[in-house]
């Protein structure tokens, strides 16, 4: 079953009177439980693609279905002056996605546990699911670090906390944008292992954006972008 179906996705940025096609008529699908790596040179449209797939941004034209639910209909958003509001996009993000970024974006005054639980705060889940929290931290090897501050962690540990934060609300799709970009090769391998385990043992769909071809190889499929178009799939 396809969890992501993208059809004719176009994203246009205007630079003065010039139109720049960051995504140009992109169509593909991702099956549930797959890892899909998105590679390409800088400026090829990788981040724009995952931003649209992850509902951080509207496409200009095209349609997108997540888990069978039509998120962006096959509409010309520009012509019809349509745009999803921040609130609508946030509600979709809450339902389907967890995000990992190159920078870890941990809040320095919150403990590891509090950082992991942040997404629950915004879903008004006032009772902490301690079992889930412990399971996730155990799986990621940071269970003994729960009461530490981010400043007391190594880079690899910080990225594990960011992964735990992305997983706490049980997302169906994990979007990882250059997750090893700030880590040395040893820590990168550890994160690579973790992503594979997550996919294998918890059946989480992972969309992985990376420059690192070794890391990209963990994908069941690889989408290579060039100038906003799919070069190889």
């Amino acid at each position, binding site marked *: 079953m396809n969890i992501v179906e993208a059809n004719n996705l176009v994203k246009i940025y205007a630079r003065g009177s010039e139109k720049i096609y960051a995504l140009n008529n992109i169509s593909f699908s991702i099956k549930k439980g797959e890892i899909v790596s998105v590679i390409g040179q800088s400026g090829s449209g990788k*981040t724009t693609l995952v*931003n649209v797939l*992850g509902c*951080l*941004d509207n496409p200009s034209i095209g349609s997108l279905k997540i888990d069978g639910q039509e998120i962006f209909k096959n509409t010309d958003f520009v012509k019809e002056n349509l745009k999803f509001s*921040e*609130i609508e996009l*946030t509600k979709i*993000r*809450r339902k389907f996605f967890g*995000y990992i*970024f190159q*920078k870890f*974006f941990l*809040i*320095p*005054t*919150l403990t590891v546990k*509090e950082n992991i*639980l*942040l*997404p629950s*705060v*915004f*879903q008004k889940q*006032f009772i*902490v699911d301690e079992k889930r929290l412990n399971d996730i931290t155990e799986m990621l090897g940071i269970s003994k670090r729960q009461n530490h501050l981010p400043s007391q962690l190594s880079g690899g540990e910080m990225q594990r906390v960011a992964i735990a*934060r992305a997983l706490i*609300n049980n997302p169906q799709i994990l979007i990882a944008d250059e997750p090893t970009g700030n880590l040395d090769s040893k820590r990168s391998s550890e994160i690579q292992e973790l992503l594979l385990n997550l996919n294998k043992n918890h059946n989480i769909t992972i969309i992985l954006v990376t420059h690192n071809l070794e890391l990209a190889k963990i994908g069941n499929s690889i989408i290579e972008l060039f100038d906003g178009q799919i070069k190889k799939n």
Partner: protein
Amino acid sequence: MNIFQLSYKNLLRRKVRTSFTVIGIIISTWVLVTLLGFNKGYENSLNNDIDGMGFQIVLTAKGCPYEAATLMLKGGTGLRYMPEEIVKEVNFAEEVDKTTAMLMHAEFDPNKGENGGTIVYLGIDPDTYPEMKPYLNFKQGNWFNEKSVNEIVLGYEAAELEQREIGDLMLILGSELEFKVVGVLNRTGTQDDGMIFLPLKTVQEIFDKKGELTMLGIRLKRDADISAFEEKLYELPDIQVVSMAQVKNTIMNLVSSAKVIVFSIAFIAFLIAMFGVLNTVLMSVFERYQEIGILKAMGALPKDIFNIILIETALLCSIGGIIGIIFSYLFSNVSEIAIRHFLPFTPSGSLIKVDEKIAVISFFAIILIGIIGGIYPALHASNIRPLDAIRSDS
């Protein structure tokens, strides 16, 4: 964890900046509570002093009404005198219940305070004055035994200042005579506390003012028409009629301009606090631009971000407000000394009366001001687009 804890922990990131903002709020709250307390305390003390006089109307020799008002309450120099015969004339009126004649005399005492000060002697009639002021109780002794005798009664503070008890002798300045202390009054919270009382006849004799008075206090019968009686008194030549209501109005007019200045200062302090809060919170929003974007990517709605920032503001103001109120309670004596130094006339008793109502009003006022200052940064933060924040390099 909830957004209150999140907001609180955000404030701990820049402890020094947060502390300075809180100090600004403490000062503003302190100023506001003190001024509201002063507004209430001053009027209460003035009313207390006026009620404590025991009469509704005072006659003095014709002169400046401001001087007359000051004379009533504080004593003063440049006294004017009226003939003693006025007592009989006034007593003749059917509206009058009782009168009491007084002669005030002021002498400069070079040994009082650092630069010397004025000692005020009040000559009173022991038959009528105590009746007019039944609340005057004695800590020691009693009133004078006779109408003309070398005896004195000291108000509570005067006794403490002069360090005298009953039986002690005390030199009366300007007379070279020593008088025996026969009574010390209990504290009343009025100007009587600082007064030195002598028999009226004695004051007239030793200061060479025979047949002269500075004041005549008049208490009217219950059903008497005060305004109509005042009109009658205006017909008396060279006499100034001062009703207690007039005294109060006159003094309130004197201090009203001072009040305008202090309330303007409070307003400016409030504005400074508001812009301090705005600046602190806005800076913190700019610094957390990417982080706020990430929070939104993780599922925070614009209203969640708005609430986080506004709660941060409210927390800053609550902490500052509570400490400011505690300070205004703890240091009301210091504030009172400063206010007494600047105002032309201050009644006896506590000038700053801070109660629960003033504390609550001030607390909510500072939170309201803070929240007004926090609205712009909160709106700015809630409008940050996650995509823009993630893309930015800051």
